């Protein structure tokens, strides 16, 4: 048999962490080709028509990776439809004639199953090695998130256009190569210092917008048409709270996490809405009280947990005249439509602030 090449779905720049994970397990990673229109086209062509759009992107990644020679696919999942992706995707890919092994990490919230799944990715790997591989990948994901967070808040105010991207581009290259925990920590520290040294034209009180919603469209700029960046470009400090490592931590400590969220979402929500729905409500309510200027709520078209959250968000928005931009993504979402909406949203926020100060 030829070499085992392990692939995974794309999500933002997390491929750097996933690649490290596979490498450290002692297997050979195959990073799926970068997301392009072709990814979505080929994914959508073989997907059920009105399945949510992350399914189509994932499937597109898998097809492109299999065409590039991948033989093992690692797929994860969450609390809603996402948890059922892997099985249906496997059936579709097999019908297309691909030969591969699917490792479905969805079911494994127990440590034992989790380890067994990793051993399927890299047969013969020791438990100790799994722990180390997971830890370093996790550390890299944390570093990605720390840099990303800083960029979201400041890139809209950079004095020299492209300055943030230059630093971040180098950070990604070096993070990919970093081997030891110490190296990752130093790199993160240095990059944050470099970012902090960039000159900014940032007002004392910039417009602040929180971004909430379904995890995949939140974390994959290709799927959300770079909405965070576009908001930033209109002079907005962008805040986002859902990250991969937080999702993992919340998955492990699910019950206390849900209890805490329900506390924050009080009095609007009494029970958990499923997936990220409760969090969307909790964060919107919290940020509104903290004086944020508005929220952007992103979801794949028809995403039920977020549709549930929407009925609450619409009420909060109406009763407190708090602007919430609702965006639904599907395979046909047009770039120009998104740009027009974001520009108009940012304009409106700016006018509200002007209206308040001049009144």
């Amino acid at each position, binding site marked *: 048999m030829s070499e085992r090449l392990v692939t995974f779905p794309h999500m933002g720049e997390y491929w750097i962490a996933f690649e490290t994970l596979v490498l450290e397990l002692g297997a050979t990673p195959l990073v799926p080709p970068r997301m392009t229109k072709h990814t979505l086209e080929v994914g959508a062509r073989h997907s059920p028509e009105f399945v949510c759009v992350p399914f189509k992107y994932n499937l597109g990644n898998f097809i492109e990776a299999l065409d590039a020679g991948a033989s093992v696919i690692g797929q994860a999942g969450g*609390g809603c*439809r996402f948890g059922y992706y892997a099985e249906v995707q496997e059936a*579709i890919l097999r019908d297309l004639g691909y030969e591969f092994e699917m490792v479905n990490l969805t079911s494994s919230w127990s440590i034992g199953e989790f380890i067994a799944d990793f051993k399927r990715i890299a047969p013969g790997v020791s438990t100790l090695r799994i722990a180390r591989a997971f830890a370093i990948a996790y550390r890299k994901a944390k570093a990605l998130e720390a840099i990303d967070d800083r960029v979201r808040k400041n890139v809209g105010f950079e004095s020299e256009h492209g300055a943030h991207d230059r630093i971040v581009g180098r950070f990604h290259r070096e993070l990919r190569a970093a081997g030891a925990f110490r190296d990752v920590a130093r790199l993160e520290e240095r990059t944050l210092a470099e970012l902090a040294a960039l000159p900014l034209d940032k007002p004392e009180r910039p417009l602040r917008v929180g971004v909430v919603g379904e995890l995949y469209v939140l974390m994959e700029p290709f799927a959300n048409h770079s909405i965070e960046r576009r908001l930033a470009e209109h002079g907005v400090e962008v805040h986002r709270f859902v990250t991969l490592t937080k999702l993992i931590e919340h998955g492990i400590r699910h019950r206390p996490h849900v209890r805490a969220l329900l506390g924050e979402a009080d009095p609007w929500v*009494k029970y958990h809405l499923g997936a990220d729905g409760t969090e969307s409500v909790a964060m919107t309510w919290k940020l509104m009280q903290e004086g944020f200027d508005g929220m952007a709520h992103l979801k794949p078209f*028809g995403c*039920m*947990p977020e549709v549930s959250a929407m*009925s*609450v968000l619409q*009420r909060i928005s109406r009763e407190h005249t708090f602007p919430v931009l609702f965006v639904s993504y599907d395979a046909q979402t047009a770039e120009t439509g998104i740009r027009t909406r974001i520009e108009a949203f940012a304009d409106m926020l700016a006018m509200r602030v002007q209206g308040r100060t001049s009144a």
Partner: protein
Amino acid sequence: MRVGLPRALLYHKYHVLWTTFLEECGFTTVVSPPTNRRILERGVALAVDESCLPMKVLLGHIESLSGRCDAVFVPRQEAFERGEHLCVKFMGAYDIVRNTIPDLRLVTYDVNADHGVDERRSMIAMARSLGVPARVARRAYVLAEAAQHAHEVELARLQQSVADSPRSGDVRILVVGHSYNLADELIGAPILGYLRTLGAEVVTSDEVDKALARRTGASMSPTMKWRYNKELLGSVELYRDMVDGIVFVVTFPCGPDSLMAELCARRVTGIPMTTLVLDELAGEAGTRTRLESFVDILRERRRRAHLTVVGA
């Protein structure tokens, strides 16, 4: 006290349990009428546009109960058994209703086996919070549970009778869909009725032994967690040799159903299947054309199969 029950979602599965329980607790129950145009229109107007059709129907029913009772019953269900889930709309229903129609008094109970919140305790707690003595509530639950069980046994017996009986029409069709869709006056009833006027014999996925169907469904699709989709998938396997064709009734844009129908089409072969996607404004004309041509195809297949046998 008058408690209103919306004739939507799980009412179609658990009306025996709920009405028996509430009445044994001493409440009067008021059930909303079968879905009509007005109810649907109000539901569409109230719900978030991207909500699924059954959620819109629920909201319409709830509003129609406003003023006709003292409180409306909207349970919240997450999981009946460990490791198994319901679609998230059942988790969100109570809070969706509360935020969509804020001035309505609601009563609710929560079922979440994963967190050890079971139906019995939860229903009794609900009754207690409404002033029902513990002893009465406990007894009401026992009676309600027994009545529900008897009801389900009867449904399972129906399935067996389908298997044992000779066909009443020249083609027999399995209609697969959630009970809240198939039993709905505006969604499923016209489809079942039209198939019958075409001369087809209709069996529905609701007429199965639910526990058996869930086990069967689970073996066909090991990672599928949705309780009711397991029943639907299982019903396909249990009935496939007894019917000539299968019609999936899916409401737009149901996530679990879209994935299940896809998997089913790939795993179950050799039997004609068609999927009807319904939304609140789907014209009846298109639906009828599709059903009619599907029945024609089934008849033609039977005729040919018959010819082959005779000719062989």
